């Protein structure tokens, strides 16, 4: 028992888990404002008292970036919210984002000791609470960077892996430049995850913080096209490169009718809405055919975001078509729950076989097939198999496919010697080193589709490995060729 929290463990266990304050399902399914307002101070403090302050805080092991969870919760007990967020920032530079989108239920909260018999401590919600506190009160201070180190590092891609790697290296004193293909920073956080789950204000603020560390960000720059990695090492004068280009190339199912007008990949649909703000047409110029009767295919976070977005854009019917049962859905539990509350209709154990079109190639329906679970496949999940004669047609005008994605091959194709693995991922060792000297990679590019926090973890590990690599290079500097040349520095400083 700690001095901060006089309650006995048995008493703590009796306190119910505190819930976020949320917009009603009816209101929010018609707007793009954030669904959840998080915990207020009172609830956060009650929630913090539930923590058992374990001697062996196993929760930290469940967190991919190993946040000292017990200590930050103790700071909340002391009302030292700034201290709490500082504790988190030691391990995680994007707490307001992770507190919102991390699959906590599978990570820190999945192993929490309290969670064995009772609902686990709402670690993610507490993380968000203190991060929001810092933001709302404008308390973030840029860490002092005391040393400047030799060596410039290029970061390719501004998703969570790239942003994290950049921040860590900048704090170590390196000169860092991020190159981003799109006109805006954030990767999936910008173009994929919708505003109603992650307000853009947060992303903009985090970007500003990374810039405040001295990191330079160049947008509209497609590495592999605008310049190649080998040019980065040559004329651009970079000594190391981190690749965090994600897995942005969408898959299609390969069923008839996919070329119709009204069929989108989830990437296109979400990009038009989130990045290009098509929902504000004609104030913004990018159009979108949102549809009145929409079917989204898939069961992951992407599918959930697409179907909830379609609903917000005015769909009268928004279906989610998934070939297994709800239990197998890869999406976060909270998101599935929110989608159900918002009136999304789940067509489970159902697989599309054909998109029906009219003479002008517009979507007018989709033929589906009922499935049943058969023998377990390689992944151990029972494989869905079609039930003969079960075909039926759903009446829809828009189809959005969220059936997975692969790394974009532009960099791999223009960087000789980079080892590529299954499904186009870049192969790395456990320190995020690729097959080429000085090139590191992480996030979805090396994992296929994963999560924000795993991308951040890779970015952190890569920063450490780059630091090690450059330090070693510095000491051997004498017998090595010159570390960098200056011919293109004019462009990047």
């Amino acid at each position, binding site marked *: 028992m700690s001095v901060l929290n006089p309650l006995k463990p048995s008493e703590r266990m009796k306190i119910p888990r505190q819930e976020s304050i949320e917009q009603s399902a009816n209101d929010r399914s018609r707007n793009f404002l954030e669904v959840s307002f998080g915990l207020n101070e009172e609830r956060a403090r009650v929630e913090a008292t539930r923590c058992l302050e374990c001697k062996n805080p196993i929760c930290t092991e469940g967190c991919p970036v190993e946040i000292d969870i017990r200590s930050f919760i103790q700071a909340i007990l002391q009302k030292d919210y700034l201290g709490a967020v500082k504790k988190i920032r030691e391990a995680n530079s994007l707490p307001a984002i992770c507190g919102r989108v991390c699959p906590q239920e599978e990570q820190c909260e999945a192993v929490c000791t309290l969670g064995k018999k009772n609902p686990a401590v709402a670690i993610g919600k507490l993380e968000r609470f203190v991060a929001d506190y810092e933001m709302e009160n404008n308390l973030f201070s840029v860490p002092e960077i005391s040393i400047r180190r030799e060596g410039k590092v290029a970061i390719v891609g501004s998703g969570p892996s790239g942003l994290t790697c950049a921040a860590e290296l900048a704090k170590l004193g390196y000169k860092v430049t991020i190159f981003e*293909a*799109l*006109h805006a920073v954030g990767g999936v956080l910008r173009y994929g995850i919708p505003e109603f789950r992650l307000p853009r204000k947060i992303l903009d603020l985090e970007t500003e913080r990374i810039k405040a560390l001295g990191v330079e960000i160049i*947008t*509209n*720059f*497609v590495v592999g*096209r*605008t*310049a190649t990695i080998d040019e980065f090492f040559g004329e651009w004068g970079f000594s190391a490169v981190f690749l965090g280009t994600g897995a*942005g*190339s*969408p898959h*299609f199912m*390969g069923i008839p009718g*996919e*070329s*119709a*007008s*009204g069929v*989108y*990949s989830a*990437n*296109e649909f979400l*990009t*038009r809405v989130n990045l*290009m*703000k098509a929902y504000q*047409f*004609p*104030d*913004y*110029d*990018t*159009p979108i*055919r949102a549809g009145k009767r929409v079917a989204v295919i898939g069961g992951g976070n992407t599918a959930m975001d697409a179907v909830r977005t379609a609903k917000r854009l005015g769909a009268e019917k928004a279906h989610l078509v998934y070939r297994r049962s709800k239990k197998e859905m890869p999406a976060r539990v909270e998101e599935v729950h929110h989608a159900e509350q918002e009136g999304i209709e789940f067509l489970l154990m159902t697989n599309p076989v054909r998109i029906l079109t009219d003479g*002008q*190639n517009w979507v007018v329906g989709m033929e589906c097939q009922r499935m049943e679970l058969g023998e377990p496949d390689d992944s151990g999940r029972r494989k869905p198999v079609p039930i003969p004669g079960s075909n039926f047609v759903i009446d829809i005008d828009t189809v959005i496919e969220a059936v997975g994605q692969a790394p*974009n*091959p*532009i960099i791999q194709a223009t960087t000789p010697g980079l080892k590529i693995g299954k499904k186009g991922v870049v192969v790395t060792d456990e320190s995020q080193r690729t097959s080429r000297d000085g090139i590191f990679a992480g996030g979805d590019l090396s994992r296929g589709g994963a999560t924000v926090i795993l991308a951040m973890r890779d970015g952190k590990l890569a920063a450490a490995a780059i630091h090690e690599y450059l330090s070693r290079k510095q000491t051997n500097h004498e017998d090595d060729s010159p570390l960098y040349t200056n011919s293109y520095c004019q*462009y990047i400083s």
Partner: protein
Amino acid sequence: MFPILGKEQLSPTITKFVVHAPYIARKRQAGNFVIVRVIETGERIPLTIAEGDSDEGSITLIVQAVGKTTKLLCSKEIGDQLVDVVGPLGNPTEIAKDSVVACIGGGVGTAELYPITKALHEHNNKIYTIIGARNKDLIILESEMAECSDHLFVTTDDGSYKRKGLVTHQLKDLLDAQVEIDAVYAIGPLPMMKAVSQLTEHYGIKTYVSLNAVMVDGTGMCGGCRVSVDGQMKFACVDGPEFDGHEVDFDELMKRNRTYVDFEQEADRTYCEAHKSRVVA
């Protein structure tokens, strides 16, 4: 930001811009394009890089005002800035060497064809060029094309300039006159590229077309630009934009390109109403 360094009116609706984009100028090759966003609230549109000057750090874009975004762009002046220009995107054109080729440009497609014709010329090809448009006003780059071609033919649909008729009429005459052509490069409106491809298929001549699918990112991320080529799904921005014209499903693409017509008309109408005095034709 990408400042406009030069502007020239090539026809009432077609404008040439020189834009400061130093990285792109160094890397661009014939057949590459850029994605441009004119203003913060604007959409991303693809435009071919007509020329590049790596010393000056500039690229040339030739734009036909057809809808809101291109009209807005054409209203920009020297010194104005484009918020985003990204590239060079797409695969460069496969440039033949020491052979006989026909280059066929329709409307503003001639601007897209120009860098390719120039590259073909530099690789010692014998070039028959045919440029066509609806009327005289829409014929662009005639002297530039003449400079890099061995023979130049011009057609207009209405006969207001040079030969009355379609580019395919001229091409068919050449082929029937037993001119030995090894390959055809055709860029223009989809119906034109389709007609050229049908004609050359009959004669068994390899034909490259450049597909103007609707694009968003231009880097292979959205799949919006997908086209059917030889029954396979391809992304025009990264697998193209050039494809074998005999394998392209033009009818499908023409239908797909109509996906947003009503939005485009609305955007165009509101833009024109708000900018009555400044808008070109």
